[in-house]
């Protein structure tokens, strides 16, 4: 062959040129993919059951079954329980991202994402961001349930919003651990199983259901370092009054630590997974 110059590709239609790279690519791509995941959630609302009905059942169950015994009065117990169960529900909801990503990876659509000129982390960030809707739905569902049962916000709207933001922020950070599981494990069921094993000590090894000074010493030691326990105490402080600052520091430090550890590991695992 003597030709060294490739002839320009002939397009039959007068078409604009190929799209060119634009700045802030990762942000734009992640948001586009977050929107995808949001559409999927809206189209299959049954997958929101775990953040709508389930927490309501928990609240009703705990308040009326245990309230009398633990607090002597169901209303008193509702005040004590609701901020904590909000944290529990939202933290629990963070598992779903890992499970759904694990399912998604097996479908061809992720092959297409891999063949596109987007950051390798974009599909993961997109899923995690898109699932923020789950946390918002959980919060709304519990708020309504709490108000119906007679929960009284002692502090005010702004501190309560701060509690919600803190909780969602922490769940966002923690969800990267489950994204990593979703990348590493083979089956969605396995992701769910392993995630739930870690969820029980995280959410029940806390002062959620009873004041932590009623717990045995070893459990108290765990509660003192467990970020979810601190998030629950901070949420209580922000909603019904009480100490907040120390707990908040614990939550933020843990959250950033988890994010810094698991987000890069998850992206790396995604790159390697074929």
């Amino acid at each position: 062959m003597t030709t060294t110059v490739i002839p320009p590709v002939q397009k039959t239609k007068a078409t604009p040129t190929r799209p060119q790279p634009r700045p802030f690519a990762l942000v734009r791509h992640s948001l586009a993919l977050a929107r995808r995941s949001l559409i999927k959630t809206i189209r299959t609302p049954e997958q929101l059951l775990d953040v709508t009905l389930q927490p309501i059942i928990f609240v009703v169950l705990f308040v009326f079954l245990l309230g009398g015994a633990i607090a002597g009065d169901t209303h008193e117990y509702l005040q004590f329980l609701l901020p904590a169960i909000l944290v529990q529900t939202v933290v629990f909801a963070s598992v779903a991202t890992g499970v759904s990503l694990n399912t998604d990876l097996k479908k061809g659509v992720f092959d297409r994402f891999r063949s596109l000129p987007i950051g390798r982390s974009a599909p993961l960030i997109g899923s995690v961001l898109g699932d923020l809707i789950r946390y918002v739905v959980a919060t709304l569902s519990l708020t309504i349930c709490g108000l119906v049962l007679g929960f009284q916000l002692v502090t005010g709207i702004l501190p309560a919003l701060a509690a919600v933001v803190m909780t969602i922020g922490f769940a966002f950070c923690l969800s990267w651990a489950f994204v990593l599981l979703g990348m590493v494990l083979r089956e969605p069921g396995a992701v769910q199983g392993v995630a739930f094993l870690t969820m029980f000590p995280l959410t029940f090894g806390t002062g959620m259901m009873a004041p932590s000074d009623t717990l045995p010493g070893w459990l108290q030691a765990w509660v003192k370092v467990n970020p979810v326990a601190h998030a629950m105490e901070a949420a209580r402080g922000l909603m019904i009054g009480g100490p907040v600052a120390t707990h908040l520091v614990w939550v933020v430090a843990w959250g950033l630590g988890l994010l810094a550890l698991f987000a890069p590991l998850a992206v790396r695992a995604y790159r390697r997974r074929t």
Partner: protein
Amino acid sequence: MEYAFEARGLVKRYGKTTALAGLDLSVRQGSVLGVLGPNGAGKTTAVRILATLLRPDEGRAFVGGLDVVKDAAKVRRQIGLTGQYASVDEDLTGIQNLVLIGQLLDLRKSEAQARATELLSEFGLAEAGARQAKTYSGGMRRRLDLAASLVGRPDVIFLDEPTTGLDPSKRDDVWNIVRGLVADGVTVLLTTQYLEEADALADEITVIDHGRSIAHGTPAELKRIVGGQTVIARPADPARLAEAEAILTGVSGRPAESPSRGVVSVPVDGDTQFTEVVARLAQAGISVTELSLRLPSLDEVFFTLTGERSTDESAAA
């Protein structure tokens, strides 16, 4: 740099399984390369490497002169991929699927919308555009999938078994789309298990087996290797089978066989011999219930090239 893409000595192992054992592939700009092979021959692995989804263990591959490992990001701007299983998002509508791809390719929202609308009407999906892809038929999904791989106006398109699982009329739709792409100057790599498909679409065919190229050439060259086509005749009166067999042998110059009861077949070299068979059968007054000219099957190609049957069971890994 006259090749649209090129692979040299690709090796890929999965544990003890060797998916590719030194595969070479290349195709000129604006032509169609058919990669033909049985299940487990390494077709999909080769496509995944060229489409930057997988890194080869050894060897190098280039698309538009760019290394698929080192310049992966740039390569991704030039390619479109349609996988073996329709890679569309079932919960999204047709238009949402295409707009998403457009946005990921850095089109502005309005441009992405326009491109999506354009592609949907080109692929006969304009009316279905607002419906979720899960309501689409298999053929519609495949068309949407093809449209999705074209959003970025790629120079090179990889089609991994694009017609597997489609019924013949839907398969023809896909074939026509591929022909349209080539007319637009796009280079296509098409993997298939069907010689017929490669023959219908490809300018050149690479036959691969056990992760290696075992033959390469134009469809005509390959057919010459495997002995062209076969004439099959089924006399209406089974008693006249021997006469029919004699006619077929006479025309072809090769002994006719009876592959199944009441049927005779013989390999022929050109289309003219088929006409001759028709004429002689008519002359002899032998009426037939079936008379056809068919390409050798993939199995026969393999048998000729390797001397062994392409047993899918043992090759599927």
